[in-house]
């Protein structure tokens, strides 16, 4: 596909993929209070990256996004597990989450929850797994 002249597709992709990426990140952060969350966010993000791969081809995107999606899987899993195990430090059972309200310089008063860190792990794993599966299959062809 990379060789053909897909002007409309590429132009549209450059716009849509960033919208999608933004929406994925939004879904991830919004998950706590509205529909969304790590799983959906991760799927959307991988959808955006896939769109990039589809319109620009493997070579270009590999240069553009030098990310090894395979390493993302263990990183995500470790994040989730370590967050869960972190509760041991405070002498509470495994996977006990907590939350609080903090004042941050730019955002003002923000709610921060450890469940978010856990969700981040889910997010990273989902992106890693989906991308690995699809890229591996594509690569095989």
């Amino acid at each position, binding site marked *: 596909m990379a060789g053909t002249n897909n002007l409309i597709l590429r132009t549209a992709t450059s716009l849509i993929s960033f919208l999608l990426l933004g929406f994925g990140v939004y879904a991830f952060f919004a998950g*706590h209070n509205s529909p969304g969350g790590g799983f959906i966010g991760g799927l959307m993000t991988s959808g955006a990256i896939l769109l990039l791969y589809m319109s620009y081809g493997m070579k270009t995107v590999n240069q553009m996004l030098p990310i090894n999606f*395979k390493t993302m899987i263990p990183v995500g899993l470790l994040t989730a597990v370590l967050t869960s195990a972190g509760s041991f430090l405070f002498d509470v059972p495994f996977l006990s989450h907590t939350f609080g309200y903090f004042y941050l310089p730019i955002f003002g008063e923000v709610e921060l929850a450890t469940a978010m860190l856990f969700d981040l792990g889910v997010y990273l794993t989902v992106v890693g797994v989906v991308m690995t599966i699809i890229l591996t299959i594509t690569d095989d062809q």
Partner: protein
Amino acid sequence: MITVNLAIIIPFLAAILVPFLHKTIKRIHIGWFVFIISSALFIFLIRYIPNIANGDTYLYTIRWIPSYNINFTTYLDGLSLIFALLITGIGALVTIYSINYLSSDENLSHFYSYLLLFMGAMLGVVFSDNIMILYVFWELTSISSFLLIAFWYHRKRSREGAQKSLLITVSGGFAMLVGFIMLFVMTETMSVREIIATVPNFNEHPLFIPALILILLGAFTKSVQFPFHIWLPTAMEAPTPVSAYLHSATMVKAGIYLVARFTPVFGGELTWFWLVTGIGLLTMFWGSFNAIRQTDLKALLAYSTISQLGMIMSMFGMSSAALQNGYSLDSVVYTQAAFAALFHLMNHSTFKGALFMVVGIVDHELGTRDIRRLGGLATLMPITFTIAIIGSFSMAGLPPFNGFLSKEMFFTAALNISNLQFSSETWMNLIPIVAWVASIFTFVYCMIFVFKTFLGNYQEEKLEHPAYEAPFGMLISPAILGALVILIFFFPNVLGEYVLTPAMYSIFPYMNGELGLHINQWHGFNTELMLTIGVIILGTLLYISLRHWKKIYRLLPEKWSFNTLYGNVLEKTESISNAVTNSYMTGYLRDYMVYIYLFFIIAVGGTLFRTQSFLFNIEGNSEITGFELLITLAMMIAAVAILLAKSRLTAIILNSVIGYGIAILFVIFRAPDLALTQTIIETVTTVLFLAAYYFLPEWKKEESKKRSKGVNAIISVAVGVIFTTIALAVQNGKLFESISYFYENSYELAGGNNIVNAILGDFRAFDTMLEVVVLLIAGLGVYTFIKLKARKGDKPLEDK
């Protein structure tokens, strides 16, 4: 102090040492070490005789699994002492014999290790007081006997014999174990002594008869009783010292020991009397009858062992008549049968051991043991001949040999029993007749054994080696046994008083007063003597006319023997189980799916039907809107269309119609997170389907039979109906309050308004974590599967 427990363990320790000694000390035959062990044990046990004769018993316990009542408890009394003396004494003699019998090219360390293993196990069987320990040693004897029979494992017949003996004795042992467990259930103790002490409390128990039969099964298989006798003749492929030791003097008497040991427990039961006496007599007759047709000397001796063991068994059965009406002075006369049995047990070990050794010498020196090729050895092998005469005349029951005494006592016991009035007189009268006929056959095969082997024409051309007298070392043991045969005849009461009488008090522990045990060589011209004279006259006549009546054996062709039955059973078991397995393990996934769903239909549908759960209550249900109806209809049309689709692409697209329909339903039922996920996942799976589609061959409609198609349709409809029924019926029974209220205040608890996400990430995050792991495994799976195949550069893994 050296205890009996230690005496059991010593052979096992020595068995471990044998290979090391064999390797380090090359000059001395390793058998001498074994000889030292067994004779030391023999001397150690002999020292107990005076104390045991005074009525002492010895009990030692080593704790093993006390919480399960299993302790390594040994009990030394008269009965176990007899057997232990036989085991160690004959063990020592057999070892001397085997030193000369086995050449040093053989794998001697194996042989002596197995032999010691067997000796330890056998001592364990006779000394154990705990029934579980008894069972452990019992199986150890089976295993070591298996190893010894297959000592020449490169021969096919040895392996077959070993397999047969193992299968039969172990299945009997297994039955015995079940019987033991039943005994434990009834008495709540595993100690034989305590079981005997509590007999009157449990002989009405419903498990009493089953336990009796199962334990007897164990005894009968081990002691080669009819129809389990078939393993002994095939076990004759073992080296002759093994046959002499295991298959005449010791292991086959383990069943006898068991019967003697449990006579105080079960003896009062009529079933016991009939089973033990009847099977014993049948075995005695069948063994002696079949021994005559044998042409192989060892096979002849094997059948003779079967017959003699049947005789001992039947005598124990007869002696249990003493317990029929409880212990009383009137029943003392029947206990004489047990005394005769014990006496014959000793005698049989002496003369049968000697005879086996004689056969071993003949086989070893001449290279054959086929009666048809032997003859005229009397002048060439005079000492062997003498021992053979002593042994077989004793076996035939002639004076002045010990077999005469025990045969007379056997006739006495049989005659006494025939006077007993249990049920019908005819049956009782049959007992002495069968015994007498069997004795005649015994006489005939004893004569065959001696005269066909040692008299007649010497046929050197048929022999592998010319005949010479055996070396001195091989003659020691049979000579000692032969001397014992005569000594016991002249001084039977030494044995009777010091060894057999204490054993009688173990078999009849509550018998009042004197058992009045005395052996007379001469007891006047009574019925027993007449019977013996009759045996001699008729036996001689039969032997002389053997050629004329031997044809009757042809009436019983090999096809109808128990060996053939055994072979057929083995073969059929294998072929039937093969056929059964092949009939349902077809290798087609389709068939396995049919089994799974059929099982589901039967199990779940059956439960639904049996519990009558078809109650449907739709009162609490919400209204159905037109929109829901529309989407459901679309999905149903798509689902039906998949079944009729002609191409794979259509099926994939139709499948995604269902998926998106579900997503819309999620929207309608207000599940935004689910709807989002469902949409994306449906897209991804459809794309993956399409990616796979590219590589798949043309979609061929399955060419299946109409019938299997119909079956499939019925099964799928049934599964669908059952699931629908369950889903509808489930609404009817609401057993618990909903727990969803707990999550309603998720904002206070988890700081989030999205309940679904709060559940996934906080309340029930453990599931989420493991699902992430599932994803990880799936991703790695795809990656490795594709990359591994690519690296190897050949066919996909599945095709290999």
